[in-house]
């Protein structure tokens, strides 16, 4: 825990009678990417705001970069869920303004803003007001504003919302590069594919409580391995095959849940033995989407 960037210890936050976050503890190591997952109302944004010092926890403690948050504000970067920019500000001024608030001097802040815009292919739009940019461009400007002061810890709240697939891919690469350069990234998202591709670790919240913390593989191991089969005949006989936990009919695929250690070869052999020709067969680990649904399925707000 010595190299932890963030440490939350038994944090609880209430708003009146409503408990938004309950007894939450986790730590985040330097240079890692943490995915913060949860349905609406799970307490993600409240937790992020507490990590930024915007809200104070009612119970528990939060240490960021080994200190109290008020001492390290300038070493944290933050991207809010929506476009937190002044509409009438120019793109370079918007980035430089946040950077100066985070401690940079004005001239270097402007130089850094232009350099970042250039690097993101927005060099020609540096002088354009935010209201004149497309949603994707404005989102990029917002991301750049969050990291212009070169923070050690970056919090991104739904960074992919509103971006087209190409821009999403660009942003994924950018997040990876920032992590490789030593920054620690925490981002919240509803989109499981981004979390699967980017995160070293995941935390799943539901109704203010932590439901899971671990790596992607650890998350997948929560659900049994599955096989999908397609055939003209009835496949219910597969339930008697050793290593099979359950068989679920479907169109066009039947789904077979496998017990731990079992693989799909017994299924193929059983079909061959029963003279059922298969038109499709595959086995794959469960997706994060399935894990997420199984963890919080009944508790989405």
């Amino acid at each position: 825990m010595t190299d932890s960037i963030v440490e939350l210890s038994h944090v609880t936050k209430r708003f009146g009678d409503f408990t938004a976050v309950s007894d939450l503890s986790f730590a985040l190591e330097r240079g890692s990417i943490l995915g913060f997952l949860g349905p609406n109302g799970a307490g993600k944004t409240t937790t992020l705001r507490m990590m930024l010092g915007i809200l104070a926890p009612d119970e528990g403690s939060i240490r960021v970069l080994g200190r109290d948050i008020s001492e390290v504000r300038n070493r944290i970067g933050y991207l809010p869920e929506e476009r937190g920019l002044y509409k009438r500000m120019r793109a370079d001024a918007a980035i430089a303004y946040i950077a100066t608030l985070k401690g940079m001097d004005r001239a270097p802040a402007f130089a850094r803003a232009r350099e970042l815009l250039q690097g993101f292919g927005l060099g020609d739009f540096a002088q354009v007001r935010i209201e004149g940019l497309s949603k994707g461009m404005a989102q990029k400007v917002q991301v750049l504003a969050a990291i212009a002061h070169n923070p050690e810890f970056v919090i991104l709240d739904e960074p992919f919302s509103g971006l087209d697939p190409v821009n999403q891919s660009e942003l994924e690469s950018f997040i990876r590069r920032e992590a490789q350069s030593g920054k620690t990234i925490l981002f919240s998202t509803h989109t499981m594919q981004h979390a699967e591709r980017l995160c070293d670790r995941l935390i799943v919240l539901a109704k203010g409580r932590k439901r899971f913390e671990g790596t992607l593989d650890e998350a997948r191991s929560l659900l049994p391995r599955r096989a999908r089969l397609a055939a003209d005949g009835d496949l219910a006989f597969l339930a008697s095959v050793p290593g099979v936990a359950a068989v679920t009919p479907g169109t066009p695929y039947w789904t077979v849940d496998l017990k731990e250690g079992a693989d799909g070869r017994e299924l193929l052999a059983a079909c061959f033995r029963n003279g059922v020709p298969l038109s499709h067969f595959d086995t794959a680990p469960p997706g994060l989407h399935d894990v997420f649904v199984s963890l919080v399925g009944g508790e989405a707000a």
Partner: protein
Amino acid sequence: MRQVWLIARQEFIKYVTRRGFALSILMFPLWIVIVTMVPKWTGAESDTPRSHVYTVIDRSGGGFETVLACMPMRETDESWLEGAQHYAATLTDRAKLPNIATLHTSSPCGPAPDRPAIEAALNAARKPGAPAFAGLDGGPSLTFIGAPDYLRAAGNSEFAAAARRALSDAVPLDTIVVLSKDFGAGTDVEIWTNDRDPDFRDLIRSTLTRELRFRAVRRAAPGFDDRAALELSASVHVQDPTAAASGSFITDQVISIALAVILFVVSVMNSSVLLQGVIEEKSTRMVEVLLSCATPREITAGKLIGVIAVAITTLLIWGLILLLMMSVASADQAAQVLGSLRAAASLQTMPLLLLYFLGGLLIYGSLFLAIGSMANSLADAQSLLGPSMLILMLPNLMISGVIHDPNGPLATWLTFVPIYTPFFMMLRIASHPPVWQVWSASLLIVVTTIVMVQWSGRVFARHILSTERPPALGRILAGILRR
């Protein structure tokens, strides 16, 4: 502190680059033109002679009080004679006419012109077909009254207060002419007046000049063409102390009203922009970014300082425009406005005016900032702004009552309603309220400002991230009082 400065700077730039700011700047000269020209266009203000009720304090012992007391009769005679002279010049055969100027009296209190004789002479010499002469009285309506005893008894040190009292008493007195002990030896005449009518001032000047000449001629007789006597006019200089010193007079009051109304307009105008800005920041989540960089206290301080900077910039530009407009106005009008401005904002009152202005701006700004942080949209804000504006507008409806009696009970009571104190003190400052009221009101403004700024900071921190509906006005007031 750095965060406060950066936020204030950003707020300033954000507001002064809005179209609305340029419009408000441009509207000012238009407003001045409307305020000054509409009364003339509508006939509410005309060039007809004004009425005056005046008194004289003559400390010279030279009998000038009598001379000035005779001025109304003299003016009537002068006016009648002017009509006669005009008739003589245009409608009579001059060869048949005696020189009517010789009938003109030399002293203001000398014998009146022999109107029947002059009328008969003019009618006898009139051209064929010309109408008969019928003299008309004209000129200003003048009424002389004796000075009240307290005014007559007042020494130099207490005279200013006594003069103000006399001019604000129920007695319809609008001008006090004061001749010093040394009048006639080059000392100026002081005129204390509620109505700076340049014609009346010239009339006093010319009457006294003529009397001095008349006396010099009598002394020098028979040298009637004595040049020294003719140059006497230069020795009479009418000084108007109300232009240089403080005084409770109509023009000064107009300036005070203007300052108070400007305080209200500038405060509400800039505070409204502040409110809109906060709602915009809340809806775009920009406020979350700010909160990740600075504390709520730093953000509210920065925003209020930004608004003060915008308000001061607005006033400076308006002042510049006023100076430009005055440079093209007549010298007399410009001197009058400058004199009144100096009277309303002297070296003694300037720090107080600044305190009232900043206090008022911060009180209104804090209130609007708090409303903005409680509202999720402009529609939400309207539900709180409506009743708030009704409360804030109240002083404007009370102006006439306070102006009528600036140091009376109504003015005093309203002054000590905390959120109205800056407005009413600005309105009353030219009327010299009692010193204890100035001090206690100033203290009240400081305390109210501190309470409101702290309260708005707490409301901002509590509500800025909330998406709940704004609380009812009663709960807000309870929050302020509970502090």
